[in-house]
């Protein structure tokens, strides 16, 4: 019941989250497309203190299979965190819609489908926590990555609506939106980002741990991002559209 399901468990952020929760003695279920790749992680998480840990196969794009996937877990986990994320070349996505669609399905359609289903089951049970990792890219579309950003915007809006729906229904199920900002992960490899705005994966993990224990609905991993994004959102469109960043 206290188990934590981590969707997209092979990413750098997911590894940091798994470790932080392992150290608290939680039971972990790592879900990934290629669970075999997680064999060393299972050993690692056990040594770090996880009560129990297993890896299961999960494909976020297979939305038709999501119900069966949750059924296959046996007991519904206490917490589901979705770390699934996929960014490919923006320029290619501008001309090749299949590439754009893959980003949209990976970052929005799939995550919304699985978290929506998990939330319904948690609401029926009367307990649970949903944690979605979204992105600052979803707060205002930019030329550089708007396909990815639009999918994250959809995901952020989905989480926000889901949270309100559950709150209005007086359900104790919580929905937490995590906006990491830049994180030193594979996705950022080869890109130089300002160190003040770039978090380590472990920071994302400890922010999530804190948000789950406390009462936050929506967190920025580094608080400075709250200010940065407020400024970016406040820019008038006629100014914003001419900015190169």
């Amino acid at each position, binding site marked *: 019941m206290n188990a934590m399901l981590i969707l997209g468990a092979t990413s*750098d952020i997911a590894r940091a989250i798994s470790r932080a929760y392992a*150290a608290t003695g939680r039971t972990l279920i790592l879900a990934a497309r290629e669970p075999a790749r997680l064999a*060393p*992680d299972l050993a*690692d998480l056990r*040594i770090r203190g996880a009560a129990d840990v297993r890896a299961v196969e999960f494909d976020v794009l297979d939305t038709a299979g999501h119900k069966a996937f949750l059924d296959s877990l046996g007991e519904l986990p206490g917490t589901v965190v979705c770390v699934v994320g996929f960014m490919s070349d923006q320029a290619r996505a501008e001309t090749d819609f299949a590439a754009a669609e893959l980003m949209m399905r990976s970052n929005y359609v799939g995550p919304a489908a699985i978290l929506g289903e998990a939330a319904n089951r948690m609401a029926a049970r009367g307990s649970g926590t949903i944690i979605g990792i979204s992105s600052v890219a979803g707060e205002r579309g930019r030329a550089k990555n708007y396909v990815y950003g639009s999918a994250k915007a959809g995901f952020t809006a989905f989480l926000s609506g889901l949270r309100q729906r559950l709150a209005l229904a007086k359900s104790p199920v919580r929905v937490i939106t995590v906006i990491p900002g830049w994180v030193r992960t594979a996705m950022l*490899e080869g890109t130089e980002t300002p160190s003040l705005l770039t978090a380590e994966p472990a920071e994302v993990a400890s922010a999530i741990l804190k948000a789950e224990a406390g009462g936050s609905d929506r967190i920025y991993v580094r608080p400075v991002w709250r200010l940065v994004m407020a400024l970016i959102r406040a820019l008038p469109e006629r100014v914003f559209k001419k900015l190169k960043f």
Partner: protein
Amino acid sequence: MRELSGWGRYPRAECRVIAGRGEAELRAVLAQNDSLIARGNGRSYGDSALNPAATLAMCHDDRLLDFDPATGRLTAEAGVMLADVIATFLPRGFFPPVTPGTKFVTLGGMIAADVHGKNHHRAGSFGDHVESLDLMLAGGGVVTCSASSNRDLFDATRGGMGLTGIILRATFRLIPVETAYIRQETLRARDLDETMELFERSRDWTYSVAWIDCLARNGGLGRSLLMRGEHAAAAELPDSRRATPFAVPAKGEKRVPLDLPACALNRWSVRAFNGVYYRRAGTGVALVDYDRFFYPLDAILDWNRLYGRQGLVQYQCVIPKDRSRAGLTALLERIARAGAGSFLSVLKLLGPGRGMLSFPLEGYTLALDFPASSASLDLLRELDAIVAAHGGRVYLAKDARLEAEALRHFYPGLEAFLSARKAADPAGRFASLQSRRLAL
């Protein structure tokens, strides 16, 4: 391409950085690159983990694979950080058998540089504690090396600066401790003779190290503060801490927010600092937590920025014991005359070493840093000559400027290393800016 450097921030080089995640990816990287070097957390000082063509970021392979609480034996991937090992196992009563002066190093880096710590005179180097390691060779195959299999490769890899292959995993034993504290005794020595005598008298202590005032001259030459320590037993802790012997008080981390101007560290500011530090330091016995004892500089993140944008060069040499007094006197006199010393000068008595490219040998090791200026580089060349004349050597993990010719004098085990390396990597595909400079 990314501008990379070692911890000294000198030299810097544009390098193609490739993340290595798992054996399959590493093998693919090997298939696509003729020349590459593995890099851990970038804490070697100079250019040993820089290769412009391909520098492999190993920090992603950082999983703990096996741990036996009965023996303390740990098997872990090479990218595991020492800080992570301590955070995970100290609360369970285990500590690394050997630790360098920073915990922000990876296991792979510790093996490649064969790092030593304040207990070298008793415990040897980190490589001495490695029971076995898995190495990916240039052809992509993986071999397990230990005292009983692939012995030459095992010896060449421990201290081999990453030139034999990619270290994937290693097994070593943690030591049991009862607390997170060290009983530290600080003693003041007025000159070099007193300092060396104190080291001799501290042989039975697990840890010993001296901070040395390298700007003191004449009668005060070699004056130092010697710190020696033992892991504190639970019974030594005050009552208030006995229930939580592995908890240490939270400390704020400090950062050096920006590069200081190059002139901030000069002979006057350093001399003033050293004088105050020497006189003010409290002598006597104290219980200090492991962070303060082993990693005082880790509390100041990015302390390398104190040296400004030009960076620093660290110089660490060792002089065999029978010639240490003469060698250290000559070195300290030359450094004091140049007025170029740092406030981070450290002296330590090492135990016997293991050969090949591993640094330690029985004698006194001196480590200090200098701004990376042409005057410093000239001075270091003079120090090389003094070290060579006294049968010593310099440490490659700190090096950014040594010449190939000097290396041959310093390391009599070089030929053995080169033949082991040739057998493992005939085409010399594992290479760094340092290995090229040193014609390795």
